[in-house]
């Protein structure tokens, strides 16, 4: 059953119900995901985003409007992702 429909029926459930859908979204190659800018709406593969990088942080910007969509603290173990102006993430 569609998770949203199930939620409508049952009041609410918990995040376990997301396992299948999130696995389908994140289980593949992450740079193939399409990031949609929450500011201007540009949709592009993560691989095509504009990235400013130093020793510990990668700032992921929209290639069109340059708003920061994500910030990845890749030197941390495990890494940490801060979400900013990311409107949508969908399978590539």
């Amino acid at each position: 059953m569609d998770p949203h429909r199930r939620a409508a029926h049952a009041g609410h459930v918990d995040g376990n119900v997301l396992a299948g859908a999130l696995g389908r979204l994140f289980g593949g190659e992450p740079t193939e995901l399409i990031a949609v800018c929450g500011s201007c709406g540009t949709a592009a593969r993560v691989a095509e985003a504009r990235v400013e990088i130093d020793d510990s942080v990668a700032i992921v910007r929209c290639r069109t409007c340059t708003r920061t969509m994500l910030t990845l603290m890749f030197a941390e173990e495990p890494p940490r992702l801060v979400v900013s102006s990311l409107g949508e993430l969908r399978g590539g």
Partner: protein
Amino acid sequence: MVAPRTWSVAHVAEATTATPHARILTVDVPGWPGNLPGQHVDVRLTAEDGYQAVRSYSLGSSGPGERLELAVDEVPDGEVSPYLVRDVQPGDQLEVLGPLGGYFVWRESDPAPVQLIAGGSGIVPLRAIARARAEARTKQPFRLLYSVKSAEDAIYRDDVTTLGEQGIGVTWAYTREAPTGWGGKVGRLMAETLAEAVWSVADAPTFYVCGPTGFVEFVAGQLVHIGHDPAHIKTERFGG
């Protein structure tokens, strides 16, 4: 869901000088799952005081097996590349994470003509793609445009020279100094040179453009300008 990726130990097997500023490192990674042509790895170095630095390097090799080839161009005042180009020796260990990337890769099943365009060390993943074509024994039409400062700055120079014998059309562009007898014009890659070197719009090629950010932006912009489909222009920017 895939398990989180972890670092693997890489044993340096060979270190070969490629240019005055670059070296090709052959490393053995036990358990390496193989990689597609065009993929890269993250390399992590740890100093004695625990300080760690991570950089991404393209692989010049692809396919099955646990032996990989990295080609590293020295970034002046860099933290990682001078060590890899000047100091690291066979027997030393590094840490690698990969194979990484699923966008800037060539798959044998893609039937489109392929146009490879490299600026400087951007040749590394393109060399993996060209070699994969040779190993696949496909007659798929391939061309390469390789822009370098001078012949001696060309990583994989000998490999690229032999690509012509495998049916890949190679065009060189020299930005500072050309070999004696070369007929072209020395200087920054020009729009006309680019347009003449690549497959036509009617051929509907897939482009792989790799190099410094400014180079890639220029090339991709020009390709779109002359009518190529942006969806078929794959780019990888090295910064700089």
